[in-house]
Structure formats: C-alpha cells, structure tokens
C-alpha cells in the first residue's frame, strides 16, 4: 500500500487561483452576456416600437384605401364613377371584380398592360384562399408576387353581395412610403411573403431574399441576419393590413460595438486578471512558497545534520516568515547543541560502554546480567571460562540452564537463580558456593548480586558476579596450613626452647655433679643416666625445632640417613602404633646439600599419608640407595636434573593404594581425595615442591589394594656435613666473660662451668643489662655470651648494640631455638661463635677458647 499522495501548497494555491480565475471569468462572462442581453432586449424593445410605428404608418396609409375600396365595393355599378375609380387608382394598381368562380368580370387598371384579363381566374392560385376567406364588408389582405407584373403586390379582398372585390396595391408605392423612414432610421423594412420570401424591401442593396421563418425567433428578438456586411436583428412589425408580413431590420452596429467593446473589455479584464494572477502567484511563490520551500530544505539539512543556516532576515519580507526563520534558526541551533551534547553523550556512553566492556572483559570476576525472568543478557569472558561456555550460547538462555551451582557440601542447588539471586537482598552481601562447569570442573566462587533498576526504580534485571576464589581458597588453605605449621613450629620451637633451657639446667647440674670427686660409682652412674637422658631429650627437642623451623631454604650438607632416622623417630610417636616402620640404608654416606627441615617435612608428609592409607595398620619402610643418572635420563625427566649421582629415597607403604585416575593429580596443590576438612591437599604438593627445590625428582607407583611407593631422587653431595667435635677435651683459660641469659638455672650452671674452667664470670639477665655492664666495664670484658631469646632486649639486639659500642668485642651466641638466618647475619657482622643449648662443659670450654682466640 503506497503512501497517500499529498498535493503541495503551491498546487493548492494554483488550483485555487485557477478556480477563482475561472469563476471570475465565468461570472464576468455571464454578466457580460446578461448586460449585452439586457442592452439588446432594451434596444429591441425600443426598435420594436419603431417597427410598430412602421405598421401604424402603413395601416394609416392603407386603411384609408381600404375604406375607399369598401365604399367602392358597396357601391353599385352606376355609383362607381370614373372619378371614384381614379381616386382609387391612386393607391391601387388594379381592382378586379370577380364572380363566384373567382374569374375576373371586370378589371380596373392603372396601367394599360396587365396580365389579368377578363375571364382570368384566380382559382388555383394562392389568392384563392384569400379571396374565398373574405367576408362581407371585411377586407383580407395578402402580400404575394403580383400576377400582373411579377412585382410584389398587396391584395385586398372584400366580399360584397356574393361577389368579390380584389384590389392590388403595388408595393413599390408602399415601399417608397416607408423607405425614407427606413433609410433615415437605418431600419430596413422587408415585406415578406407567407413563405418568408422578401417580396419588397426598402434596402435592396442588402440582397436579402428571404428571412428565417422561425417566427418565434423573430418575435423573441433572436433572429439575426447578416446582410450588406452588417448584422441585423429582424423584428416583426404588426400591421392590421399586412399582418405579420412586415419585418423590420434593426441594425446591431451599435449593439455590436457595445458587444465588441464589452468583449474587448472582457478580454482585457481576462488578460489583466490573468496578469494579476500570474503576478500574484509569482509574488506568492517568491515571498511565501519559496521561503517555505527554503524552510523545507533547511529542515532537510538539519535532518542530515547540517546546521549551516542562512541569515534569518535574508530574502524574507513578512514579519511572520522572519519570525519563523528566526525561531527555526534558534531551534536548529538548539538541536545542534543538543545533538552535539547527545553525540558527546553517546561518545561518553560509548566510551563507558567500552570501558565497561573492557572492564567486564578484563575483570577477574565473572559477571552475568539477566533480565527479570532470569534469562541471560550478558556473559563476560571470565564467565565463559568459568562455565566453559561461550557467551553466544549462553545469552538468552535461562540462568539455571547454564550455570550449575552446588552448596559447599556439594549438594546441587535447584532453581539457583530464584533461590540465590533473585532475592531482595543488599548488594554487598556475598556468599560462597561451588560452580560446576560444563566440563564438570568445580570452582569455589563467591557470589554477589545486585538488581538492575530503571529510572522509575523498577527492577529490570540482575547483575550477578562470581569471583572464583578457588585459588584464593587454596592459598588461604595453604596459608592456614603454613600458619598452622608456623604456629606448630613456633609452639614446638617455644616448647623446645624452654625445654632446652630446662635440659641445659639439668645437664649443667649433672655435669657439675660429675665434677665432684666424691661421687660413688652409683652416683656417677646415676649422674651419667641423667646426662644421657638429657641428651636424648635434647635430640628430641632438636628434631622438634627442625620440624618447626621456617625460613628460606638453607643449603647445607645434610645426612639423609640422619634425617630419615629423625623422621622415623617422630613418626613412631605420632602415627598408628599398628604400623611397622622399617628402614634400610645401602650406604652409610648419603649426603645431600639442602634444607634438612624441609626434607624432613617432606618425608614426614609421605609417612603421614602412608599412615592414612593404612587405617588398620601395615608396613611403612624408608629405603635409601644411590643411583646414577646420565644426561639422557636427565633429559627425559620432567624435572630439572643434572647428570650425576643421586640419593634414592624409597618410601613404601602397604596401604590401599592410589587409583590410577588420581595418580596424575596427587602432587596438585589442594588436590585431595579425602573428605572436606580432613585434608588440605597440600602435603604432597609440599613434598613435590621440596624435591624440586632440591633439584631432585619424585615419582610414585601405586596399586590399589597393594600399596604405594614414592621414590625421591636428590643430588648426592660429597660434603661431610656439619662436623661433630672430635673429642670432649675441656679447655681452660683466663678472662672475663659476661654471661647473659634470662634463665637463672642456666646462669648458675654456666657460671659454675666457666669458673671451673678458670674464667671470671659476670652475669646479666637480659640484653639491656649486658649492654649496661659492658658500658661500665668496657675494657674489662673479654667475651660476651648472649642468649638469643630474652625479655627486655634479645640477643640479636644486644649484639648489635655491643658491636656498635665496641666493634672489637667478642660475642658468642648461646641458644636452643633460633632463626638460622639471624645467626648467619650475626656471623657476617662479627659473631665470634655459637653454642647450642643445652651444652656440656667441654662444648662450652671449646667454644669459649675458640672465641677468645679471635681478635
């Protein structure tokens, strides 16, 4: 269906002009016709009066003759004297006396020559009717072509006593009678036969021989005749004698002139009107239509975004149009400004959308927007990755169809959208659930959601954000584990430290007792038992300290055999007693360079895992051997190995085994097959990390129902490890020693030891006191023995201050629990020695002697 066609204003105005023009012309035309008709009618009326005058003249002239004829006809033959006849012949050309047969009985002639002779009959001629119709005493006349001379003649017939009297009047005389009048008044008179033939006329030059016999037209004044190069109107003149046989021609020259003048006037008016219409139309077009068209063009420019508008006053004439142009320009400028603002707004919006899009793409969280019904509107890349589904496939689908949610216990949450997201909740509150992807991977996520509102505050959808906290949770768990381990380490360290102090006291006292010469063998044995027990306690605390020690990898030569032995020792105390722990060492010299605590932790983790796999007991064995890896083997290994000798540590259990599908993932952090809360999944990951950090390798072999074997390969070292003193020689000496320890028992026992060695001992219970004493005694202190962990000021701080005050002051650290990095740092800054508590006398004497030797 095509659009409705509208006409233009110009067309409308044009049509209006044409219609008004036509109407005006029509009205004028009819008015002109009416006026000319009226003029003609009035003219005809006037002329009809003139015609009547002709009739009256004729009647007047012939009436007398008619009376005379009547008298003649009434007279007898004797009375018809020649004189009377002569008088009659003035008017009449012939008078006939007719018998009943209309034959001529007697002829009275004006001229001698006549074609009517005695015996001539009018029977059979057109006069027969005339003659027969006459009545006694009454005349009937007829204008016919005379039978005597072919000339027009008026016949008057009268009946007298059964006979007829027929008189003929020659029209030439009558013509002469009216000619002057006719010529003078310029109104030709036509004497007509009954058939319209012009028998006689006052104006023969007109060459009119007949008239239109539509007498009605003549009587209505509508019989127009062209004759003699003039136009006439034929009017019938009534005459009693001639009847309707007289036509008077009225000249229409004047009327024609008037008519022509009116026509010319009409034509001029038409031309003027046309000209005025054209001028008006052109003016209208120039002053109104073209400006309007210009507005239309300007509107189209504005529509296309072109705001270069003409000067508002240019070419405009009317204030309305100027005002319109002005307002239009203002409007255009407003539109332009708004459009620019809109463009800027759109640009900003576009930028914001781009920013939002980039943000959504860049954001680390999954952002899903839905409509009010839960159908997905947007699905950012993180959501795609999380759900393992592209945005195109997700958009438009119901949320629950795309996103699978389980609670933290693993139970699926049905209608998650309605239950979890489409709620009247505050924006900030978030919660954690699991999201199961299309590939069935599970992600721990925190969810936050917010309703989207329109300007009216109505909800139009939801924004749901998922934050994948899986890694965060793992890290948190790792942190928690680490912190737990740290706490345990701290606890262990603290306990060990205090325990060491106590042991130091016990051992020191026992040492001192042993110095007594008066001891019985039994007493000495008892003292030796005390010392032995104390040494075992020291080993145990040392292991605990090793377990709790944290910090960066310390690369020192360590004996794997010793580490394994320590590990077995710990495990035997902690795991199920129904598990038998075995060990075998192929070579007694199995040294590696690394961090003994980390290696011990790794072995402990393997042992603990093995114990978990044997809930009803079993066998756990640690086997150490040596193996050589060549370059080819190292190349094939997934670990970064250097060709050479390796220490192979086998940890084997007889547990339930690891299913093959889990074997590949056991070293993944947080991967666990245990129930949630029962395992962090970090143990084996830590083992893996430790092995890697030691440039080693690890692999596992397991059979379900049989057991599991872990092989750890560590690069072998040729180092001998930390040297144990070759003897228990007690070295005496001289000097002033400042002993600093917060434990009183240590101070007492150590003082007694030193004094027994020949030294002078000053005591301080904390670092601050020691510094104070040094300040007081500065030149007189040969050696300062500092405990590390002390209240008020610890050993590290005291060492720093002492070295600041007296850079050459000799300091030895005595401690049962310390950070190895602290010790290394202090060594770099001039520490003279270190002795681990609890110490024996000979250990103390050797360390003091060594330290005093240093300058």
């Amino acid at each position: 269906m095509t659009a409705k066609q509208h006409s233009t204003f110009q067309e409308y105005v044009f049509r209006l002009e044409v219609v008004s023009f036509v109407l005006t012309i029509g009205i004028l035309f009819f008015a002109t016709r009416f006026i000319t008709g009226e003029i003609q009618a009035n003219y005809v009326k006037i002329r009809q009066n003139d015609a009547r005058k002709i009739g009256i003249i004729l009647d007047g002239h012939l009436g007398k003759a008619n009376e005379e004829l009547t008298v003649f006809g009434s007279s007898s033959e004797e009375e018809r004297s020649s004189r009377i006849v002569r008088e009659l012949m003035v008017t009449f050309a012939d008078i006939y006396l007719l018998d009943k047969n209309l034959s001529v009985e007697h002829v009275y002639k004006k001229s001698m020559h006549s074609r009517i002779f005695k015996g001539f009959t009018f029977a059979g001629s057109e006069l027969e009717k005339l003659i027969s119709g006459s009545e006694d005493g009454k005349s009937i006349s007829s204008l016919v072509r005379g039978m005597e001379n072919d000339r027009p003649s008026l016949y008057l017939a009268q009946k007298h006593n059964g006979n007829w009297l027929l008189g003929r009047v020659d029209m030439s005389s009558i013509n002469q009678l009216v000619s002057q009048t006719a010529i003078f008044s310029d109104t030709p008179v036509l004497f007509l036969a009954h058939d319209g033939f012009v028998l006689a006329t006052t104006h023969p030059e007109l060459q009119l021989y007949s008239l239109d016999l539509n007498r009605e037209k003549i009587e209505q004044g509508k019989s127009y005749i062209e004759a003699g190069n003039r136009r006439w109107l034929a009017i019938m003149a009534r005459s009693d004698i001639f009847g309707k046989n007289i036509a008077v021609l009225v000249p229409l020259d004047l009327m024609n002139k008037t008519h022509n003048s009116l026509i010319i006037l009409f034509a001029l008016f038409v031309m003027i009107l046309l000209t005025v219409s054209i001028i008006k139309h052109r003016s209208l077009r120039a002053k109104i239509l073209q400006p309007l068209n210009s507005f239309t063009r300007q509107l189209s420019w504005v529509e296309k975004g072109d705001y270069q508008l003409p000067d508002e006053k240019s070419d405009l004439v009317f204030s309305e149009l100027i005002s319109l142009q002005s307002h239009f320009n203002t409007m255009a400028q407003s539109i332009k400004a708004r459009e620019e603002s809109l463009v800027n707004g759109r640009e900003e919006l576009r930028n914001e959308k781009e920013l939002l899009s980039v943000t959504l793409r860049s954001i680390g969280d999954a952002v899903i927007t839905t409509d009010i019904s839960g159908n997905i509107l947007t699905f950012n890349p993180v959501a795609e990755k999380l759900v393992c589904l592209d945005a195109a496939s997700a958009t438009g689908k119901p949320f629950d169809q795309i996103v699978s949610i389980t609670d933290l216990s693993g139970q699926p949450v049905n209608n998650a959208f309605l239950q979890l997201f489409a709620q009247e909740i505050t924006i900030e509150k978030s919660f954690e659930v699991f999201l199961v992807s299309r590939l069935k991977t599970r992600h721990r996520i925190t969810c936050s959601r917010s309703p989207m509102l329109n300007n009216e505050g109505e909800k139009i959808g939801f924004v749901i954000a998922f934050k994948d906290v899986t890694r965060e949770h793992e890290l948190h768990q790792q942190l928690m584990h680490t912190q737990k381990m740290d706490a345990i380490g701290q606890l262990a360290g603290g306990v060990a430290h205090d325990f060491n102090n106590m042991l130091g006291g016990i051992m020191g006292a026992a040492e001192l007792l042993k110095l007594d010469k008066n001891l019985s063998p039994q007493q000495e044995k008892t003292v030796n038992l005390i010392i032995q027990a104390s040494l075992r306690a020291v080993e145990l605390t040392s292991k605990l300290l090793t377990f709790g020690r944290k910090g960066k990898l310390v690369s020192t030569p360590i004996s794997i055999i010793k580490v394994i032995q320590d590990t077995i020792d710990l495990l035997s105390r902690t795991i199920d007693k129904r598990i038998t722990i075995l060990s075998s060492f192929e070579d007694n010299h199995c040294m590696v360079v690394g961090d003994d605590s980390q290696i011990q932790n790794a072995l402990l983790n393997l042992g603990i895992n093995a114990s978990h796999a044997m809930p009803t007991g079993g066998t756990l064995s640690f086997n150490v051997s040596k193996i050589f890896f060549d370059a080819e083997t190292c190349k094939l290994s997934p670990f970064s190995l250097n060709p050479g000798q390796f220490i192979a540590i086998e940890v084997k259990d007889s547990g339930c085994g690891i299913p093959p599908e889990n074997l590949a993932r056991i070293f993944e952090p947080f991967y666990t097959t245990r129930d949630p809360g029962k395992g962090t999944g970090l143990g084996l990951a830590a083992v893996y990390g430790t092995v890697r950090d030691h440039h080693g390798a690890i692999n596992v072999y397991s059979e379900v129902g049989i057991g599991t074997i872990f092989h750890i390969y560590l690069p072998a070292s040729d180092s001998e490890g930390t040297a144990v003193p070759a003897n228990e020689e007690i070295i005496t000496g001289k000097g002033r020693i400042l002993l600093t320890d917060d434990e009183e028992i240590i101070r007492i026992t150590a003082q007694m030891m030193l004094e027994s060695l020949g030294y002078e001992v000053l005591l301080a219970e904390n670092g601050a006191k020691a510094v104070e004493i040094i300040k007081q005694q500065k030149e007189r202190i040969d050696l300062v023995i500092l405990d590390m962990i002390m209240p008020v000021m610890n050993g590290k701080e005291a060492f720093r201050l002492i070295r600041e005050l007296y850079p050459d002051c000799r300091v030895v650290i005595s401690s049962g629990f310390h950070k190895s990095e602290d010790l290394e740092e202090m060594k770099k800054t001039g520490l003279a020695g270190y002795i681990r508590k609890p110490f024996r006398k000979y250990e103390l004497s050797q360390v003091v002697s060594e330290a005093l030797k240093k300058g």
Partner: protein
Amino acid sequence: MMFNNYRRGRIWWVIALILIISVISVLVRFESRPAINVAIVTKLESGTVVGSSEINTALFFLENHPDCLINIVKLNDNWDATTSREVVSRSINNGIQFFILSTPSSAAVASLDLFTGRNDSQALNINTSATTNAMSGLDDNSFRIVPDVSIEQQNIASYIQTLPGQNILVIQDSGNQSYTDPAFETFSQEMQKFPDKVIKTVKTKVADFDLTVLEPAFSEKYDILYILAGSYQQVIGNIAQFSLQHKPNAPIIVTPWARTPSVLQTAGPAAEKIILPSQFPSRFEDEKIRNFLERFKKRFNYEPYSMSLGVYQALEILRKAFQSGHKTPETVKKFLEETKTFETSLGKVDFDKFGDQVAPLYFITSFRREFE
C-alpha cells in the same frame, strides 16, 4: 519532487493560457478554415423568383456537408450580361477560381471568354442554366449541368410530334432571344422532320403580355400551344390561361425553364393542360428528387427552382473534386474530364469531352400535381 511540482505548475499555466487564447479566438470569431471559395452567380434581388433559391440551395448543401471545404461567395449579376461579366471578372481578380453560374445564356455567353480567353488555370465554372450552343463543343473551363438548347429542342420537338393535332402555335419570347432564337431554330428544324405538323410562330415579349399580339394569335386555329419562353416567368401561366380561354383542349408545352410553382399561381385551370419538359424527372417518379424537394421545402418553406437542383449537383461534383485533392481549376477540369460521369444525389451527370451534358428530357404532364 519540488522540481516536478514546479514544472507541473508551469504546465498548468501554459494550459490555462492556451485555453484563454482559444476562448478569445472564439470570441473574436477567429477562423482559419482553409476553405475553397466557390462563387454562385445569380440574380440576387429581393422578391425575385430565382437567386435566393440557388443561394439557399448552396446553404442547404453546406448544412448537409459540414466537412466540406467549400466557402460560398454570393455574386449578383442581375441576370444582366454586362453586370455578369463585371462581377465574374472582378471575382477572378480577387482570387476566386471556381464559379457556379446560374445565369441565362446571355450572361453566360458574355462571361465565356473569362474562362477560355485567360490562362486555363485561372478559373473554372459549372453552368446550371445556360443552354446556348455558343458554349457547346468548346474545350474550355466551362462545364454544363444542363443539356444545350439543341438537345433540349430536339427532345421537345420529338415529344410534340407525338401529340395529336396538326397546328402548332409557338409563342416565342422575344425578351430572351439569346435563348429562344437558337431554340426555335433547332425546334423548327427538328419539326421539319414531321411535315404533318404546321408551325405558326408569334414572337412577342411574353413579359409584356401584349393582348394585341396574343389575342389575334390565339384567335387563330391551333392544336398545340408551345410557349417558348424561359427565365421562370410567371406570365407563362397567364398565357396558358389565356390559351385555355380560347382553346380549352389544346395542350400547352412549355420549356424546362418554366418549372416553377409561380406559373401555377397564374395558370389557373390551364395547369391541367401544361406539359413541362424537365432535366429532372417528376418528383413522383424519382424518390431522390422528391426527397430533396421535400427537405428543401421543410427547411426553407418553399420549393426550389430547377436551376437550384443543378446548383446542388454542381456543388457535389466540386466537393468530390476537392476531396480527391484537386484544388486548382486545371486539376479539377482534368478530374471532371477524366471522371465524366458523376452520380449525384439528384441523378447522374454525364459530361462529354467538352464538358457538355448529354441527357434526355423528362416530360411532366401533371403540372399542378407537381407543384401543389
């Protein structure tokens, strides 16, 4: 779109202007019909018997053929030879190339050289009334609808010969000797073939109706009266009635140029005795003639004269020539000579190689019935 509106507006204005100009042209009676002038030369005078009949016949023709290219020019020669020549000459000079001469022989002869003495392409005429032999057998630009006087009189003589009676009184009109002299000559020559008929001739101007001449003529013995007069003179009827008074039984033969109802007005009872020779048959014997006469009378309220029928035929012939693309006297003449025979609505017209018609006469015996 605006340009189209603008153009449409212009077109409207152009149309309006054209309409106005057309209206004005009509108002000022502007005509541009490329008509061909055909002059009808006859006696145009109020009250005359003839003249108006030919003009009205021409008008009647144009009304019956509105698509005709012919424009009628009326020329009055008063049936006078001198006037006729002047009028024709002037008209030829004014560019009129085609004439229908409805004039007596005297006038026709007077103008003859205007059609033969000049360049042949100047003018052409068709004569409807002149029977003079002076026009016969000439290769000129003149064609005749009517047979010449020789053929006419031969026919009349042959007819009279069949009538009973021996003595023939011939009243020869001396008022038109150019016609009656050669007519009588031919008649008398023809009558010599019939020695049993005796001819007595009285030469008089019939228009005068001189009883001093007629009385003694009609007093003598005769069996057949032959009024040798033309010009449609009404007096023929008077003469006939006068003859009836003297010789009630004698048939009265008139010429074809008495075929006019005005004769009936004056013939009275003598009409029963009148025998009318005519180039056209009685209306009661020819439907076409009857139809034409009735339509003419209905239109103009009077009967046309026989010459008028010839005028109508002449116009039909010219129309045919013009429609065939012949618009000069030379080409029309050639067309007429080559075509020779024309079937007109009023009968056949046969031209011989000289443009004369050879056709028999019809003898109408019921004069009154013919014109009542």
